[in-house]
């Protein structure tokens, strides 16, 4: 497709389970971002990749959160031992490259931890 694709769109996990969220960026986009958005809040930065290199992971809230982009295209955000406070929408965005300004966002993966 032409846009950023995220899967699954909805995920319900029991507390303590591991989850994996997938992001397919727009083809040819060098930069990829993950954001976390709680209800009624703006997106909060989690991590940033340029090709396969993770250049900024300062927003990851704990060592339970891990992201990878091994071939510089598809990215996976993994959350281990999920907690209720992890419930949020996880947004992926891509752009042509650094300093290009416009980010293209996917529709997000809504995670609910019971």
């Amino acid at each position, binding site marked *: 497709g032409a846009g*950023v694709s995220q899967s699954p769109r909805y995920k319900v996990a029991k507390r303590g389970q591991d989850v994996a969220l997938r992001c397919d960026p727009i083809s040819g986009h060098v*930069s990829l*971002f993950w*954001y976390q958005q709680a209800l*009624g*809040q*703006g*997106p*909060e*930065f989690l991590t*940033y990749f*340029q090709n396969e290199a993770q*250049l*900024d992971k*300062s*927003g990851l809230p704990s060592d339970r959160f891990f992201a990878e982009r091994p071939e510089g295209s598809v990215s996976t955000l993994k959350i281990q031992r999920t907690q209720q406070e992890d419930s949020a929408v996880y*947004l992926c*965005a891509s*752009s042509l490259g*650094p*300093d290009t*300004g*416009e*980010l*293209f*966002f*996917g*529709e*997000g993966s809504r995670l609910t931890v019971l």
Partner: protein
Amino acid sequence: EDQVTQSPEALRLQEGESSSLNCSYTVSGLRGLFWYRQDPGKGPEFLFTLYSAGEEKEKERLKATLTKKESFLHITAPKPEDSATYLCAVTTQGGSEKLVFGKGTKLTVNP
């Protein structure tokens, strides 16, 4: 710490009633200021980028302006389809490529 504050949190307008949304920022050095629109259940959609004080950009009924401390998103003669949450974000000098977002302004335009 870099901060972006948007006001008001929510705004209700009648169709055709013009108004402005505010985004004030406190950052170590501004590289760019961005406006996005977000519809329920969707990801944010890019509207504008502004880089320097005095800069203005327009798109249909929307006009964004930038000063050294804040940005305004002016909405002229809004229509119900302009109802959405409008998000402001900044990138900073010396930082990575990350956008720092405000909490957004939820705009409702009644017919």
